[in-house]
């Protein structure tokens, strides 16, 4: 079982953040991923919660610090502290609730305001087990993700469908991005870039 292990041996740490409207199942996805548990009525997240799981990708042990945020806090200044240093952000909506899907664009904008430009995003439609209550089709989720230029998955914390896949996929993309950045730096034809990171954003 993958409960929080105080495993000292890890090759890198990634900070991931779960965001999305209240009630879409962010905490349930996290609980399923870290403790393999599901609780249909989960307490409201106040501020943040935080869980750790170490995973292995391509032989590298990666310690994932996953921050779970409160859905009501989108516009709040306090959330800027949560985004600091996040390498991956999981945008969650509920496939049975159209409003939460409509709000994805707002969350996307909020994330862009606060996160680093190279932070990797992923869109997730949770509760895909609720076949009769589905209000947002997979195609619409996929097409929104394409429009936003980010990967997409549907998952269910309840049935454990695609939950591990979601976190592994995100971690893997971040790892690959990091690798290609390293390669880019090392393939500079011997030009010393003084390990200066290229400033991508404005000022």
């Amino acid at each position, binding site marked *: 079982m993958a409960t929080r292990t105080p495993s000292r041996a890890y090759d890198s740490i990634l900070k991931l953040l779960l965001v999305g409207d209240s009630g879409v199942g962010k905490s349930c996805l996290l609980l399923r991923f870290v403790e393999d548990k599901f609780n249909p009525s989960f307490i*409201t997240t106040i501020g943040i919660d935080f*869980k*750790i799981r170490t995973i292995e990708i391509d032989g590298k042990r990666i310690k994932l610090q996953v921050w779970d945020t409160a859905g*009501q806090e989108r516009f709040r*200044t306090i959330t800027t502290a949560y985004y600091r240093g996040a390498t991956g952000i999981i945008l969650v909506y509920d496939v049975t609730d159209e409003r939460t899907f409509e709000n994805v664009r707002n969350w996307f904008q909020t994330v862009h305001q606060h996160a680093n430009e190279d932070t990797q995003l992923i869109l997730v439609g949770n509760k895909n087990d609720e076949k009769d209550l589905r209000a947002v089709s997979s195609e619409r989720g996929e097409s929104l993700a394409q429009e936003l230029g980010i990967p997409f998955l549907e998952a269910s914390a309840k049935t454990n469908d695609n939950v591990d896949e979601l976190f592994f996929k995100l971690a893997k993309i971040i790892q690959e991005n990091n690798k290609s950045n390293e390669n880019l730096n090392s393939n500079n034809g011997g030009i010393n870039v003084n390990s200066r990171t290229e400033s991508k954003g404005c000022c």
Partner: protein
Amino acid sequence: MKHNLPPQSCDQDFRNDYTVCLNSYKVEFVENELQPIPTTPTPIKEEDEDPSHLKQDLLKKSVTIDPLSTGYNSSEDVDSILDVIKMDVDRLIIDSIFQNEDIKQDILTILYNYNNFTPYKQGFHEICGLIYLELYKDDPQNPQIKIETFNIFTSLMLSVVPNFYIEDNLIGWCISIFNKYLKLIDDSLYDFLIKTHKIESQIWLIRWVRLLFLRELGMQNTIKILDKFICFDYDLCKLIPFVIIIQLLKIKLNLAECEDNGEVLSLLLHYPHTQMTNEDVKNLIDQSIKLFKSPESELSKLGVQLNKDINKGINWDKVKDMDRLKMELRLQKKVRGLLGRKK
């Protein structure tokens, strides 16, 4: 219900069945002043181009006094706020009584009416639920339970909302009050959290203070602490930083053993609490009051003394920083291991 008792009577009543008992600001609404929850979404007539006009009507009907005048606004309309409140009340699982539909409706009515004074924020529901539960335990048949909960909740939140639920104030409180006292009382812990691990206090304090320790220390401990605060009419918000700092000193050795800032944060957000006895609570409050009343120049000395009282077996006069503490703990572990092997 004991909320009409004078504070000194509470002392005698400070027994096993604690209750959040005192409506110290004497908020005294009566039952028929509570507005019913609209059963259908707030209708917006076509000719009403500006929906805020409707909200204005609603305010005029329901507010008789405004005890808060907090000045923070919310763009969320009544319907979506009601949806959030409903969702949170459905997730109120501090006790099985909240599965009862009538009780859910009571909580919803209280929070809906309170929203007319102060825009609903997640967290209100748990404090409200806690008060309701305590009154329910006193008398499950109490016909006044809804209005009494509303009045006590409103009274309690008079200081909690402006300090902890208005975000700028919360951030200001964390930096200029909490951090300040933490540095004065235990400089090494301040350096460890804020300088070494770069953990901004508001990140973890938000839940500690907004829910008045409910998640961190557990419901029974929280009730005992709040009861003592409220019975004796202590200023909750002034004592809270000292309560938290003392609780941090209790896990200082665990904190020292953390490997990275993730482990530190995880510990702060999953505080390893145990059931506190009445004596423990009394000590905690007494120590908090002592720190509160002491001049700032005395706090460092009192901090060392607290460390000595709480974590015995460490030479606190010599162990001045967390790295040294970590080394000391490793050494002690090693020695214990060697002694164990010899036996």
